[in-house]
Each structure stands twice: as structure tokens, then as C-alpha cells.
């Protein structure tokens, strides 16, 4: 139970941090585009726990949950979005390209699919140096449409690098549902065509995610081979447009999330699409309320 509380605390910190960032966004304080990742907390926390000191993490434009998880603080990230010298990268990178080399994040790309081949190169450098580590590269389901995804699968398999492709499938690309634009892409078949093992995870159970990612990491290390993990996520904060169909924010604030409405508790949706709701079922709502109040107190202290 103690471990579950710790997981809940970490997820809550990422959730409330994003709710506070959303408030700043709504107030018009950012000049750079910022991509919220509400609902991505479970996979971010699980991956943060799995990463070893020498491991590398290559991120995409929607990197907020992972950067918050790896840093464990809000202030330097918020300052980075505000382009302040006190930001995590001295106000030089903003949001979409934010990195944290001290915590293994050595490249984040604002270009869809651009980071996959870079990750293959990073993993290859580790291979020739004989370093015992694994590289994780993050992409969304939209990025699997890019040729660079398949090219990188082929290269990674051919070169036998310890690289884990983590595909966050939120079924959205920009502001529309993926099926409004294209046919279904079967990532398992894509990876299977080049004999790369594939795993699919869903339901936002952070501990289950941790166990699967830890096993996948061990397997990549042992077999010196790439692996693909598709994780189903729901990017929360979508809303009904004037014409009646649901749209999601791509960048920009989400008007449907508000600190006065969603704190204390931090739950945005009462089903398995929300990792905070999932953990609240195990810990109880009172415990989640308590955790959210404690985390918010820490965040406020950090921000003052």
C-alpha cells in the first residue's frame, strides 16, 4: 500500500502541475506552444521508475509528463515555458524541445517522427561503446504514419540496438480523431514484419505498467534487440465543438479543465481513461483527496 501511495503521489504531482500550467496558459502567459499531457501520468511515472542511471530517453513535442516525472519539480519547467533564465534549459528550448541530460533526456523533437532515427543513432553509440544501457524513444500514434517510424524499425532491427519504441496511442492527431483522417494502422503487424517484439498495455494501472516496462527493458538488454510497446492513453481535456463533434486540444490550454473545479482530487474523468481515477479505486477517494492537498501544498511552496 505504501508503494501504491508513492505512485499516486507522483502521478498527482504531474497531474496538478499540469492543471497549474493550464491555468498559466489560460491567462496567456506563454509565448511558446505548450502541449499538455493530462491522462499520460501512469506511463510517465512507470517509465521514470524503470529508467536506470545510464539509460537514455528521447522524447517528442508532447513531453510534459515525462519531463515532470524525471525532474520531480515544477518550477524549472514552468520557468522554461516562460523563457526565463531560471528555466530547466535556461529559457533556450521552451516546451517542445525540452531536454534534461542530467536525467537521461538528451533529445526532444518538435517534428513528428523525427526523433525515431536519432534514437537509433543514440542506441548505436551505446552499442559500440559497450555501455550497459537501454534507450527509450517516445512517439504518438500520429508519428507512426511517418516513414521515419518504419525506417527506424528496420534500422534498429538490422543493427541490433537496445532500443524501446514507446508509442502512446491516444487516437488523436492534432485536433481530430485519428479515424477522421486515415485507416487503422496495426503497429503489431508493422513491428512483426521486421521481427520486433511488440507489447500493448492499457487501463492505466501504473504498477502493471512498471512491471511490463521493467521486463521489456531487461529483455532488450539481454537480447540486444529493439522492442515496441504501444500504450493506450486518453489525453484528457477534450471538449465538444460548436458543430457537435469532440475535438482535442493539440497545443494550447484546455478550457474544460480548471483548478477550481478539479482540485482537490485532480480526477478529470470517472473511468479507466484517467490514471488518477484508477489509483483512487484502490486507495479510496479520501486518501486521494489527502494526497492531492499535500501535493498542491508542496507545489505552491515551490512556486512562491
Amino acid at each position, binding site marked *: 500500500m505504501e508503494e501504491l501511495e508513492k505512485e499516486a503521489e507522483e502521478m498527482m504531482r504531474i497531474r496538478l502541475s499540469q492543471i497549474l500550467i493550464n491555468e498559466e496558459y489560460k491567462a496567456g502567459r506563454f509565448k511558446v506552444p505548450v502541449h499538455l499531457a493530462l491522462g499520460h501520468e501512469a506511463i510517465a511515472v512507470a517509465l521514470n521508475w524503470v529508467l536506470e542511471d545510464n539509460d*537514455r530517453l528521447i522524447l517528442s513535442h508532447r513531453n510534459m509528463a515525462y519531463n515532470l516525472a524525471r525532474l520531480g519539480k515544477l518550477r524549472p519547467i514552468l520557468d522554461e515555458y516562460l523563457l526565463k533564465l531560471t528555466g530547466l*534549459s*535556461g529559457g*533556450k*528550448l521552451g516546451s517542445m*524541445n525540452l*531536454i534534461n*541530460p542530467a536525467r537521461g533526456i*538528451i*533529445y*526532444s*523533437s*518538435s*517534428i513528428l517522427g*523525427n*526523433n*525515431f*532515427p*536519432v*534514437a*537509433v*543513432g*543514440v*542506441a*548505436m*553509440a*551505446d552499442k*559500440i*561503446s559497450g555501455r550497459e544501457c537501454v534507450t527509450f524513444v517516445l512517439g504518438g500514434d500520429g508519428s507512426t504514419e511517418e*516513414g*521515419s517510424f518504419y*525506417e*527506424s524499425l*528496420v*534500422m534498429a532491427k*538490422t*543493427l541490433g540496438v537496445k532500443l524501446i519504441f514507446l508509442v502512446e496511442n491516444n487516437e488523436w492527431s492534432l485536433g481530430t480523431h485519428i479515424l477522421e483522417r486515415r485507416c487503422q494502422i496495426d503497429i503489431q503487424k508493422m513491428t512483426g514484419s521486421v521481427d520486433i517484439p511488440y507489447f500493448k498495455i492499457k487501463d492505466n494501472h501504473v504498477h502493471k505498467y512498471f512491471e511490463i516496462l521493467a521486463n521489456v527493458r531487461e529483455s532488450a538488454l539481454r537480447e540486444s534487440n529493439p522492442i515496441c510497446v504501444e500504450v493506450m492513453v486518453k489525453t484528457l481535456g477534450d471538449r465538444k465543438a460548436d458543430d457537435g463533434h469532440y475535438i482535442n486540444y493539440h497545443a494550447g490550454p484546455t478550457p474544460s479543465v480548471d483548478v477550481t473545479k478539479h482540485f482537490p482530487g485532480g480526477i478529470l474523468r470517472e473511468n479507466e481513461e484517467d490514471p488518477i481515477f484508477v489509483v483512487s479505486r484502490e486507495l479510496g477517494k479520501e486518501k486521494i483527496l489527502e494526497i492531492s492537498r499535500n501535493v498542491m501544498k508542496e507545489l505552491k511552496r515551490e512556486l512562491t
Partner: protein
Amino acid sequence: MKYIEHLNNLIKTEVVKPEHAVLFGQNINAGSCLGGLTKGMAVKPGGRIINSTNSENSLVGFGFGLMLNGAQGVFFMKQMDFLLLGIDQLVNTYNIIRSAKHQPKEGSFTVVATVVDSGYEGPQSSLNNFADFCSVARIPGFAVTNRADADYIFSKHLFRSGFRVIGLSQRLGKTEIIDPGEPVKVFGDGTIFQYSKGEDATLVSFNFSFPQAQSLNEALKKAGINADHFNVNSAVATDWFPILERVSRTKKIIVVDDSKSVHISADSLLAELTGKPIEKKVVIKRKINENWLYPVSDVFEIDEKKVIEEIK
């Protein structure tokens, strides 16, 4: 010795030096598949030679990944127009890496590519301006035109930390390599080479027009005109001062540029000369005709007699 043979010998000399060199590209080290380039290469045990997949965009990204993580990568590319597929990586990845507070210090990445300037590749031959690729993101780039610049550029830049592109000439590939002797001076780490000094005129060549400019310089000399000869090897970060300083003395300039693009490097120099007291200016550029999209000879010819008359 042929141009391509000399370059290959230089490459073979350099690639055995680093501990973790990763040489990659389609069909490299497989004999004469790249016109003899990369034939017989060897690296230290900690390095790799990878006969790679056909995926230029991803291969450029792969090179940046190697560099980010401390390795030393070289991508040998058969034709520079293939690099069009890697423009996203050239611009965005390179800029993202450069903009970070903590940039990689040890790693390096170099693209060695052959500019399609023979003319016989048809539609692909229109893109013969090496500077176009460098300009898109102010990428350090070095055009190799003769023995002196080749020796300097490969030894200094092939594994230097950071990123650059080295451009070779398809047209010069099977010709004897030109040995201009020891340059008078090399400026800006190889961005400009000066091959002669004269008080009567200043001759400046761009892209892969060095052979024509050298021939013109000899003709000028025979006509009693002693000229400076500068060759501009890089299109970016060029400090024009050495050339401007000489033109302020000679008051006469001849520029030669064999590029086919609308915006060419010679124009940058000419813009710098605006308002300066110049007595004579001769600009020799490509004349684009109706055959420019078809497989035809791409040899760049200069009417030397006419130039001599104009500059006198």
C-alpha cells in the same frame, strides 16, 4: 591520380584514427559502387562500417544520434540530391541540438556527398549548388575542388566535433586531381583558400568552378594581368574581409560561379561590394537555357579572351 582516388586515399587515412568511428551509407566499402569512393576503408576495432538501408532521412537522423551520444559518424552519400530527403534532420535536428544549453562536445557527424554536376543525370542535375544545402540552416560545409583544399578539409574536418557537410564533385570525379601547390593562405578553417596574389585584379571562384577559374588565372597572367585568386569553399559563415581588402587595392573583380540556383554565393560577395569604389567588375555565371532539365554536358565554359578584354 584521379580526383576520386585521391579523396578515397585521404578518407582511408583519416577513418582509421578515431576509436569509435561509425561509417555508414548505402553500398559503402563495396568496391566501386560509389564510383570508387569508400573502397578499402578500415576502422579501429571499436568502430563500425555499416552498409546501410536506403533511408536517407533516417540515416541523417541516425548520424545526429551518434553525435549526440559521443560517437563519430560519417554518412557517405552517393549523390547529394538524396540529401533532400534529409532536410528535416539537417534543419530541425541540427538546430535543436545547437540550441541546447549543454551541447555534445565529443561527438561528430559529417555527411560526405557527391554533388550531381556532370549534367547527365537529367532533372537531378539542376541542383548543383552545394551552398543551397548549407544555406538552409547555416550548416558548415566545404566543397572539395583540388588537392590542396582536399588535404586540408579532410584532415581538419572529417571527425571534428559537431556537424558539417563535405561536398564532392561528380564532374571532377574521373579527372586528374588538380594540384595548385601550397595556397598563399587559408581563411576561416577552410572556408576560403587563396591561391595567388596579384595587384591587377581579384578573381574569386565559387562552388566547383575552381578548374575554370584556375585556367582563367593562367590566361590573365599570360596577358600580363597579375590577379589574386580566392576560392570560396563554404557558403556560410564566410568572412569576406580578406577578399574585400584585396579588391579595395586592385579595384577590379572577376567572380566565377557555376551554380544553377537563383540565389548563388557569388551574389553575397557582390552585395558586400555595393558602394565600394570598383573600376571593373566581371561576373561569370551559368546561362540557363532550354536544355537545363535534360541529360546534357554540364561543363562550365568561360570565354577567357572576352574576360581579359573586359578586365583590362
